[in-house]
């Protein structure tokens, strides 16, 4: 089976200001089917830039991007849009919900666009809203929601088309612990179903669900390795509060 995501010497230099900003500097990343990869690193280290490029939302400066064995960095915008509809879910750091649609329709639309029947799309919408404790808010406009609620709607929307690849940028940035718990449960279900996840996060609980951690620093990968599991440990060894 080929890698779900593969980048070769991927580079992004922003040129819109007076000085060019090298945001991603030669990233080689390979993600296997079903893997859950967390991406961490300081602010400005290039996390959003990297994940946007993987979703075709930002053009690369040089290097290659492959998804499911297909070269995609050369695709047109419309070809990218099609690809995203079919197999990618994207959660933006700053939500990007459609302002003039209800919460429910924001979640239902991607399922319809991906070709689900109206009945199936409605079922997806209802189960996702329920899983994230948002059923009551289905009729509201995004602007009427709190930051944490919008964040969860963005996640529900990204999962509506049952994407084989979920790309998420800080999906728990605005959540309290109760809501983080709902998101954690949903993410681990998604992971168990075999969907591939690449997720930028500062949240240690979310990151600890991942199989693997990639650390970015100054636009480069400085560490890439598995997160060890030691399920045999007993409680007393885990907790040692002073």
């Amino acid at each position: 089976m080929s890698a779900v995501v593969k980048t070769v010497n991927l580079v992004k230099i922003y040129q819109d200001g007076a000085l060019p900003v090298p945001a991603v500097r030669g990233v080689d990343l390979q993600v296997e089917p079903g893997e859950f990869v967390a991406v961490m690193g300081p602010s400005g280290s290039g996390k959003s830039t990297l994940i946007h490029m993987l979703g075709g939302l930002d053009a690369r400066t040089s290097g290659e991007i492959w998804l499911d064995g297909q070269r995609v960095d050369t695709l047109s915008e419309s070809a990218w849009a099609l690809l995203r509809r079919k197999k990618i879910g994207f959660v933006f750091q700053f939500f990007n919900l459609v302002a003039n649609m209800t919460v429910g329709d924001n979640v239902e639309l991607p399922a319809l666009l991906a070709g689900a029947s109206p009945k199936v799309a409605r079922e997806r919408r209802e189960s996702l809203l329920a899983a994230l404790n948002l059923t009551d808010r289905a009729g509201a406009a995004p602007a009427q929601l709190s930051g944490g609620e919008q964040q969860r709607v963005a996640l529900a929307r990204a999962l509506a088309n049952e994407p084989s690849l979920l790309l998420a940028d800080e999906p728990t940035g605005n959540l309290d612990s109760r809501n983080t718990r709902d998101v954690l449960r949903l993410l681990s279900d998604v992971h168990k179903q075999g969907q591939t996840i690449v997720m930028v996060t500062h949240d240690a609980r979310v990151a600890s669900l991942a199989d693997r951690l990639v650390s970015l620093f100054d636009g480069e990968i400085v560490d890439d390795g598995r997160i060890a599991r030691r399920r045999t440990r007993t409680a007393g060894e885990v907790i040692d509060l002073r």
Partner: protein
Amino acid sequence: MVRLHLLALLAKEPAHGYELKQALEQTFGSAYPSPNIGQIYVTLGRLEKDGLVRAVDVEQSNRPNKKVYYLTAKGRDVLMTWVDEPTEGPRVRDEFFMKLVLAPLTGIADRMALITRQRRHYLSLMSDLNDLLARTPPADRVAMLLIEGAMLHLQADLDWLERCQEDLA
């Protein structure tokens, strides 16, 4: 610290060693490293020597006598002092931080490598805590809060690690 925990339990009612162990387990649930019975008896012996508790022998019909401990006035004073004084905050001198500062000076380690390895270690501890939380019945409020506390500490350690990376690496 176990000394003071035992004094607190004895302030409620006199008890023998095994009852104290059970009371600790019942209160803190699965989330707390419960001391073994030997450790409890050793601690009770020291408390008795210091005059903070006293023991009476209680006869049992077909078993050896057991010792029931109760709190003395002096023990109560020590307990009250403990309760009344402000509690030390979390450590500020961190073992990892000492390594991070000192090891590279000698050329035996690279800061970036130390930081990234430590980050993965914290995440694997966090993953243990996630499992522990999932196994803890929600009704066990004390255990839940203890685990959540450990998680928040770990998050702070991780955030600090990132600050160290920005400034030192």
